[in-house]
């Protein structure tokens, strides 16, 4: 059996980071759902702040330095992507966008993506629908219907209503994500040189 690869991107900037916390919850729940469907799962999580300089360098020079190259290859090879951004000025953070600006466009086509965001107030919750979902729609990803937004109050301890609500949303999103992944063949990455046109084809 092929192991399913989940790649998790947290764009949280502080440490500890609530975006990372949400990303971990989403990853754990998705892995659990996949295993419940009989899949082997491998989870890898990165924090974009570790690659922030490389991302900027890539936008300036046109190529990804070694460590970032390896991350971009892993993104392309993943069976599913979990992405979480903090809400900045009513949208994703600039670093989050810059990262997806350097991911090859085709790399995310038909890839299930579970979107999450964090913010200080529940009034930002539509950031997922008006900013994050359109970005991945443009990249032709298959975005999980349930996006998970977590405001400060959602993290309330003691099992209150808000906390239960977040846990339920995470589980529902994870179930949808696992279903989208299992209905697809495991991802294989094509070699661009293998598919390059011959000169006869170029002459048309």
């Amino acid at each position, binding site marked *: 059996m092929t192991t399913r690869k989940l790649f998790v991107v947290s764009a949280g900037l502080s440490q500890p980071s609530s975006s990372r916390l949400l990303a971990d919850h989403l990853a754990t729940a998705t892995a659990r759902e996949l295993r419940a469907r009989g899949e082997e799962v491998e989870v890898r999580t990165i924090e974009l702040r570790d690659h922030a*300089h490389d991302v*900027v*360098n890539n936008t*300036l*020079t*046109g*190529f990804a*330095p*070694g460590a970032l*190259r390896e991350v971009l290859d892993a993104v392309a090879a993943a069976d599913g992507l979990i992405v979480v951004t903090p809400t900045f000025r009513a949208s994703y953070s600039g670093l989050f966008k810059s990262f997806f600006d350097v991911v090859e466009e085709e790399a995310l086509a038909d890839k299930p993506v579970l979107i999450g965001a964090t913010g200080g107030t529940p009034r930002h919750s539509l950031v997922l629908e008006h900013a994050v979902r359109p970005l991945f729609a443009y990249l032709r990803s298959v975005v999980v219907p349930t996006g998970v937004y977590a405001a400060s109050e959602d993290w309330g301890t003691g099992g209150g209503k808000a906390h239960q609500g977040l846990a339920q949303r995470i589980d529902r999103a994870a179930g949808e994500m696992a279903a989208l992944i299992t209905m697809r063949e495991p991802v294989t990455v094509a070699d*661009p*040189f293998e598919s*390059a*046109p*011959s*000169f006869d084809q*170029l*002459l*048309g």
Partner: protein
Amino acid sequence: MQFGIFTVGDVTTDPTNGRTPTENERIKAMMQIALKAEEVGLDVFATGEHHNHPFVPSSPTTMLGWIAARTEKIILSTATTLITTNDPVKIAEDYAMLQHLADGRVDLLMGRGNTGPVYPWFGQDIRTGIPLAIENYGLLRRLWREDVVDWEGKFRTPLQGFTSTPRPLDGVPPFVWHGSIRSPEIAEQAAYYGDGFLHNGIFWPFDHSKRMIEFYRKRWAHYGHGAEDQAIVGVGGQIFMRKNSQDAVNEFRPYFDNAPVYGHGPTLEDFSRETPLTVGSPEQITERLLSYRTHFGDFQRMMLLVDHAGLPLKTVLEQLDMLGEDVLPVLRKEFAIGRPAHIPDAPTHASLVAAAATENVLEEVQS
């Protein structure tokens, strides 16, 4: 093995004193650099072609003609000639004329080059860059090889009974290299015709250049021109040196930090690790340039960038002196060691004339 330098002709402010050369100063400086290249024993001088600021070399054959008149040995080339937006008829005529004036010391590097806005200035569209490169070059080849051409294509007006003039010197067209950073289609084109492929990966990681060159070698063999290791490969490099390596780093850093292309991005150290850029003592430069063979196999031409980012003319001329005295002799000696006998040299006018003569003799014998 040929060693050369190429200029992109950028007019860049010197970050150490805030001074920007005039266009005239920069153009004259490029000419001094070309003459110096011959003086220190380099094999090739090449100029880029640009039609947008801050670059000045819009008219390569004018520049190369001036250099041809003042030099004896050095091969004059381009880096690159825009096969997309130039008229292939004009390329055929301009470079045949240059070939006569330079007594054959001419070859070309074809490239698509250009940023999006440049194409419309010449009535073209960057989205058709590859088809333009394929069609225009196909026509260029015929103009150099057939005395009378009837031709019709998609991109330029048809030709009826056209003869490109002057005819190539000794009936042998200039050798052509093709350059592309990312498009396997162009490596495929070079392989198909048995032309050279020059990967100028000076802003790119070695791994990337290696994959492009390996692809070209494989396709070259596929089209029956010879074994993979006999394909005609050129590579780009970028160096800055001083006797003492720390002096080189200290002097080059402000130019690096403010350079077009990578300035205000990666550190000099990061960029030197990832790409062919090498800053240090002549010994360090020599060692790094020799290491290209481990990445690319035996190749035919190495082109170095030494005059960009606002470096003053005096500094560039000093670089060339050091290159000629301390680096070049060791490179020539070391690259020759262990180079298998079946690996060809880069074609020159003389070798192409000799090859054509052999072909004629064979044809006569057969007929």
